[in-house]
């Protein structure tokens, strides 16, 4: 008998008999009832508490915030996709600047070492965020591959304020995750960190040292959320 059959047989022929399954009450995971302003404030306070950096911009002016971040951080090589509106707008805005735009939508075999050694930042969109824990929700795509938010020392994520939801449970339920998961789904809450050396917090142990979130607002920041 194979290991599979042996294991399943033992579990099915349980000595103390079949078990009954309790029902679960998930109400503790949902129903926060936060307003959009509370949601945004909560998201911002949670992600900045773990070293995330948050910038606000009006929807039409976010690329200026991006350019400012790149300038402040001294980024000269930015990994970026080509199809997502975030990538399209970023490319248009940065076309004449001093930042080299590196195509992220390429087979990784062609540029794995280059990505590790020379890419200074990666720009991605986000599908949404979670206020309760200050988490970004990313589903990597061919246009924005998995490593774009992982390998470069700086990850810049673009988030629309109205896509912030209360809890992880709310996101999973409202967006029907169970009906179709991507090959890789991610929650990202801050830059990479470790406390393995005598519980002293250090950032950027394997993934990005810095995480910048540019929050785009439908109206000018402050107005919609006041």
């Amino acid at each position, binding site marked *: 008998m194979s290991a599979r059959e042996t294991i399943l047989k033992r579990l099915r022929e349980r000595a103390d008999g079949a078990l009954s399954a*309790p029902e679960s009450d998930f109400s503790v*995971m949902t129903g926060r009832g936060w307003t959009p302003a509370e949601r945004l404030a909560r998201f911002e306070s949670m992600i900045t508490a773990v070293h995330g950096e948050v910038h606000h911009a009006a929807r039409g002016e976010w690329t200026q915030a991006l350019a400012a971040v790149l300038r402040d951080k001294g980024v000269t090589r930015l990994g970026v996709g080509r199809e997502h509106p975030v990538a399209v707008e970023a490319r248009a805005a940065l076309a004449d600047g001093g930042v080299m735009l590196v195509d992220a939508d390429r087979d990784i075999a062609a540029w794995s070492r280059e990505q590790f050694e020379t890419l200074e930042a990666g720009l991605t969109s986000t599908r949404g965020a979670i206020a309760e824990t200050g988490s970004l929700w990313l589903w990597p795509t061919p246009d924005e*591959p998995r490593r774009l938010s992982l390998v470069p020392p700086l990850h810049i994520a673009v988030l629309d304020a109205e896509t912030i939801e209360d809890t992880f449970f709310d996101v999973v339920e409202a967006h029907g995750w169970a009906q179709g998961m991507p090959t890789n789904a991610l929650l990202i809450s801050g830059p990479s960190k470790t406390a393995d050396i*005598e519980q002293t917090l250090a950032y950027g142990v394997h993934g990005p040292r810095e995480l910048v979130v540019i929050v785009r607002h439908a109206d000018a920041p402050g107005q919609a959320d006041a």
Partner: protein
Amino acid sequence: MSVQTYTPQAFHRQAHDALGNPQIRSNFRRAMDGLMDKRRSVFSEWDVETLRELGANIRLRALSRLPDLLEQLEANCQANGIRVHWAGDGDEACRIVREICQAREAKAVIKGKSMVSEEMHLNAHLEAAGIEALESDLGEYLVQLNEQTPSHIIMPAIHLNTDEISDILHDKTGTERTRDVDAMTAAARAQLRERFMAADVGISGVNFAVAETGTLCLVENEGNGRMTTTVPPVHIAVTGIEKVVEQLRDVPPLYALLTRSATGQPVTTYFNMISGPRRADEHDGPEEVHLVLVDNGRSAIYQDDELLDTLRCIRCGACMNHCPVYTRVGGHTYGTTYPGPIGKILMPHLMGLEATRDLPSASSLCGACGEVCPVKIPIPDLLVRLRKESVGEGRGNVPGAGVKRNRKEVFAWKSWQWLATHPGAWRAGTGMAGKLRGLAPSTLRPWTDYRTAPKPASTTLHALVKRHRQDHDTTGESES
């Protein structure tokens, strides 16, 4: 630095050594105090009892349907392109992993944190086959460089202080000596990035495996888990068969409980959900993803209604952080893959009670572990059950049951039972003990190392009360 091998058989000697080691005492005391405070503050805004109830309930529901869920997990993983393997024990799991590596002619393996792989002794197995297995979690990396094993399931290098880590990095990797944690972290980052690029296979554990969607969930802060499961062309996930949950909606409550209970964090930096290898149109991610489902004693634990609760565990380590014994002796003292309270109720099943005979009794039964357990495992009750099993008074459902049965002890307790249920004999016996109290031994092995031996009183309590009543007979009358 001296590198020592620890075994559960030598628990008493190891505990004695650890208690006399001020470095160990202060490292663990400081760390565990901090973790307890953080956990308390992060749960302050929650109805923690309701959340624990839900967590326990989700795990019980998963266990109640375990064989069906494992088949569903397998089917959905396969539909997603994940290859599923089953292993009866650690050796079989090692062989499966090795064969996957050999099929890819792998020479270098990079590992994310996996306690199951520690339980299987996977690294040693791969190395014997000429495959280098390198740990990438910073704590695991340091412990591996120092030729040790993890002393905590969440913080593997918690027993080491900054100076010791500086020495390890200097001696083993040539890193310049420093007390600057950022500099040491940066050095490890650079060293490990090279290894991620060179690795043929990445091996990780699994925190939750979702049957409904065929999804493997990994919880981490460092990003090494994402690197391990993304950069090498092959990803092998190894997990105990009990880690399956029924639905995707079961994951948020368990994740909320896990991070808060483990390190007092409301969330970890990364929550990585893997539902398949890279698709044809994707540009990165592994070409192959394998899932190895490891039994290794779990299906035996599953048979018994009471012992079953052991399998609810989500490996947060809160029971260690709150254990007065673990905090004082540290993780290595136990000599087992899983230390602390969860180790004491799990390892006897994996290694047998002969080897682990001292573990269930290395507890004051204070109950802290059971109170903080996010899935409400009644750890103290299980410790008592294992004590019963070890003296042959249980159901005989644990390997090595009865190993501590001692005929003299059984006789002593049986006599006690008889005496205590026969008042005449009891009175005669206690009266006699009082008269012969001078003959009571003055040393009782370890008990009297730090204590005075107990002696029967010259007058029994019964006799004293009787005399007291006679002396104050008005009181006695007014009460009756």
